[in-house]
């Protein structure tokens, strides 16, 4: 490979997006083989990342940066350390299997190419998120995952439920995204760097500042919404509306793990305080138990898995909150174990749904005969979830018990919560493995048969790796956990995983207790479910419904505000605008003492003698008279047309004044505008077919008249005040001096318009055209009676 190793990191983040752009084309060219072709991209990324592993294990971090906005000193940096490597490997590895799976799952679907494009873009965003060094880039990728997951969840856009779930996920995660942006900016202001790699070196900068509470709250809001922590958990089960490949990807390695990654990444910056530990452990614990109980309530296999994802995320957050070496090691192992078994189980469930036509756990049974390979896949995943020895899940459980073992009563409480949560999850694992596949065969909507190889490879490979990983504890400890804990905490966790059983080790007995409780939960699953359903009916209120209530409330509020402001009565709009103008003129003037000069001072003496008529020539008086006559005619005119024409007279008089006082350009423009105004107003008024006479009640007349006088007085006053000030002639001198030699034009006004301030003019003519288009649109609407009739309520 011609590229340097470091450049390949940047390529990793970009390749999925390129593949996503090409996906629809490949789909239309290669048809059913498209998924196999696109599979190369994530698989290649996986291999490249694997190639970096050696250096990361040796304790190095690999980083690369390309210029982004050099003028702001922004670089688009990527770096690979133990933590991001674990996440990136999981994302690309599972992503590759998901692409294959999706190709088979949606075979023949009209929009398969589009689906694969979304999927790859989503994967790219996720990879970018875990590899990015620049915190603004992290925010960008964070939002990209929200947007792409929105597209994926709402892929089946014909269904209302899918659209709602997609919007819900977008709204919830975007609230978090905005919080993240603010947190990032505050952190940058505190530390002076956008780079996380530098920020992590500046320990205490954020933690000891007065803004620590703010940053922590915002970061937690971001992580909790993304990672579906209680009370923001409800969007995740709803996201099940997506096709199964999306669920398998979204719930295992991506999206929801974004929040977990963020928390782990920011541990050196924000962590190791009692607030951090307390909040994370408290929210994580509630989420763990809530999710596990929620899973027991469900009968839909996908819903069960979705709820267990919530529980697992809670567990991960608890472990990050604990923050000890053992806890972080446990977090990493559990993340890997969970990603593997959850993706595998989702794929199996999707296969069952695909081939048997239902995924209701009470309607399935005895499928092991018909779908033996699926059963093996499910069993591998479920056993890892159950935490049996020889699987990665076992180590995850051991590590987390070790992390919480010993200490004060709070630690014991956390340990109890962990055992309870794990026991519930273990029971559910048994449920998923045994209910659909063993026991008596039940009739299903479709005649079940084995799923195609592309759909089976995922669960089998993932389950297999989970077992292989479970057989190689030394490798796991040294090559995965040590670099990852180094990345999170700055110290390596010494490898201590082993396969040997020490009967005197209390942690082993905790595992045994967990299994025992798990089996109990499995046996009583039906009873628990009935009980929970009853409790749910008794409460009758969920966070999901609260979301709906908030959303509808928001829409109603917006409607009310719009109706209040946008009532459709022109005269009130105009009144409001001019009343505001009056306020804007008079309030600042009176506050800044602009009226002081009006009040006659004592030394002025008899001020009436000081009044003198301005020294004007006779024709200038004539023009003033002309303007006044025009104005008077406007006021007393009985017919609209006469009023419009009189207004034109007044404007023409104004143009003459401009002409006389040395502004020919202005006069010219004023004259043209007057002519066109009169023409257009006349045409409009004729078209409106109103009464020729404009009769108005006295109150209206008095109100508008008062307002007009106030605004007129305000403007005149302001202008006179401006004229009393000294004129700063620097600008006009500059223009007068340079217009001919520099801009080759003698007409300063025009030179300013087309040369000095050409960009402004460009903007103005764009606005002129935009306004023209808007006016035309309004006119067309008026001329379509059908629309006009039903448009307005």
């Amino acid at each position: 490979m011609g590229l340097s190793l470091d450049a390949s990191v940047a390529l990793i983040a970009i390749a999925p997006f390129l593949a996503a752009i090409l996906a629809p084309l490949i789909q239309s060219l290669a048809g059913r083989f498209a998924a196999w072709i696109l599979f190369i991209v994530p698989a290649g990324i996986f291999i490249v990342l694997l190639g970096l592993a050696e250096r990361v294990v040796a304790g190095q971090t690999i980083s690369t940066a390309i210029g982004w906005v050099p003028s702001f000193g922004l670089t688009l940096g990527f770096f690979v350390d133990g933590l991001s490597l674990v996440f990136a490997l999981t994302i690309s590895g599972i992503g590759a299997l998901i692409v294959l799976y999706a190709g088979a799952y949606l075979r023949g679907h009209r929009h398969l190419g589009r689906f694969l494009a979304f999927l790859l873009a989503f994967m790219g965003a996720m990879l970018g998120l875990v590899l990015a060094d620049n915190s603004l880039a992290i925010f960008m990728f964070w939002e990209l995952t929200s947007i792409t997951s929105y597209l994926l969840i709402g892929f089946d856009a014909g269904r209302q439920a899918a659209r709602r779930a997609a919007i819900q996920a977008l709204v919830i995660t975007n609230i978090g995204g905005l919080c993240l942006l603010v947190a990032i900016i505050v952190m940058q202001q505190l530390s002076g760097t956008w780079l996380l790699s530098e920020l992590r070196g500046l320990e205490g900068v954020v933690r000891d500042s007065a803004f620590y509470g703010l940053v922590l709250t915002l970061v937690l809001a971001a992580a909790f919404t993304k990672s579906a922590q209680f009370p923001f958990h409800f969007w995740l089960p709803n996201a099940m509306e997506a096709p199964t490949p999306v669920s398998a990807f979204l719930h295992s390695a991506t999206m929801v793990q974004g929040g977990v990654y963020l928390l782990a990444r920011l541990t050196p910056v924000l962590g190791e305080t009692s607030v951090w530990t307390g909040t994370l452990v408290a929210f994580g614990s509630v989420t763990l138990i809530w999710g596990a109980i929620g899973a027991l309530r469900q009968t839909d296999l996908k819903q069960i898995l979705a709820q267990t994802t919530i529980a697992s995320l809670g567990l991960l957050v608890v472990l990050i909150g604990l923050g000890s070496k053992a806890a972080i090691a446990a977090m990493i192992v559990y993340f890997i174990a969970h990603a593997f078994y959850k993706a595998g189980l989702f794929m199996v469930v999707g296969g069952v749904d695909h081939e048997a036509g239902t995924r209701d756990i009470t309607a399935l049974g005895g499928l092991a005969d018909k779908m033996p390979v699926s059963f093996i896949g499910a069993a591998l995943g479920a056993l890892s979830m159950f935490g049996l020895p020889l699987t990665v899940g076992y180590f995850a459980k051991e590590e987390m018990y070790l992390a919480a073992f010993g200490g004060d009563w709070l630690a014991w409480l956390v340990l109890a919560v962990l055992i309870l949560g794990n026991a519930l999850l273990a029971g559910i694992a048994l449920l998923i493995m045994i209910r659909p596949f063993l026991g008596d065969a039940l009739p299903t909507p479709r005649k079940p048969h084995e799923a195609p190889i592309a759909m089976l490879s995922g669960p089998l490979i993932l389950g297999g790796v989970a077992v292989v990983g479970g057989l190689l504890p030394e490798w796991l400890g040294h090559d995965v956990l040590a670099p990852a804990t180094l990345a999170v905490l700055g110290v390596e966790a010494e490898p201590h995983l082993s396969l040997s059983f020490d009967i005197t080790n209390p942690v082993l007995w905790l595992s045994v207790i967990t299994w025992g409780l798990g089996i109990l939960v499995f046996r009583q699953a039906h009873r628990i479910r009935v009980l929970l359903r009853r409790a749910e009916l008794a409460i009758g209120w969920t966070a999901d419904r609260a979301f709906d209530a908030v959303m509808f409330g928001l829409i109603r509020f917006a409607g009310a505000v719009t109706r209040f402001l946008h009532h459709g009565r022109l005269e009130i709009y105009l009144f409001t605008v001019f009343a505001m103008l009056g306020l804007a003129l008079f309030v600042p003037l009176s506050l800044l003492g602009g009226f002081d000069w009006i009040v006659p001072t004592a030394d002025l003496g008899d001020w009436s003698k000081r009044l003198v008529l301005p020294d004007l020539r006779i024709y200038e008086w004539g023009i003033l008279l002309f303007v006044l006559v025009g104005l008077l005619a406007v006021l007393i005119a009985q017919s609209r047309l006469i009023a419009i024409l009189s207004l034109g007279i007044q404007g023409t008089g104004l143009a003459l004044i401009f002409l006389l006082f040395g502004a020919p350009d202005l006069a010219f423009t004023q004259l043209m505008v007057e002519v066109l105004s009169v023409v257009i107003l006349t045409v409009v008024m004729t078209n409106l077919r109103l009464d020729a006479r404009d009769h108005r009640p006295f109150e209206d007349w008095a109100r508008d008249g008062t307002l007009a006088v106030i605004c007129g007085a305000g403007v005149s006053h302001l202008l006179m005040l401006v004229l009393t000030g000294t004129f700063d002639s620097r600008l006009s001198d500059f223009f007068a001096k340079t217009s001919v030699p520099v801009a080759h034009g003698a007409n300063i006004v025009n030179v300013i318009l087309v040369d000095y301030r050409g960009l402004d003019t460009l903007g103005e003519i764009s606005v002129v055209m935009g306004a023209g288009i808007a006016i035309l649109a309004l006119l067309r609407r008026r001329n379509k009676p059908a629309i006009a009739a039903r448009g307005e309520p």
Partner: protein
Amino acid sequence: MNTVIFRTAAPLIVATMLVFSLYICLRGHNEPGGGFIGGLIAAAAIAVFGMASGVPAVRRALKVDPLAIAGFGVVLAGASGLLSLFTGSPFMTSIWLYLDLGETTLPLSTPLIFDLGVYCAVFGTISSIALALESDREEDL
């Protein structure tokens, strides 16, 4: 308004106004005038023409939709600014070209192109509004 006198005189007035508008536009750099005023005069001419001969006749005579002229104007103005990029100067730096025509020199410049863009934008926008208002029927819009 559709008197015989007006209908007969209108084409003459319109033609004069249009030529005058161009004159005003072109001389703008040194004398009162410019693209904006020129555009307004031309638009007023179109409005007069519309009153006298009816909107369909004006549209036929114009050949292109006035709004397209406006769009062309905005693009032209923007493009004239882009020319300076070829000389390595910032956007909208003016470039002057003096053509020697024997007895006189003809100054050409990017601000001139820009001003023509302004002319077209103003002319197109105001004319299309005026024509839309003058036409009674939907198909004339």
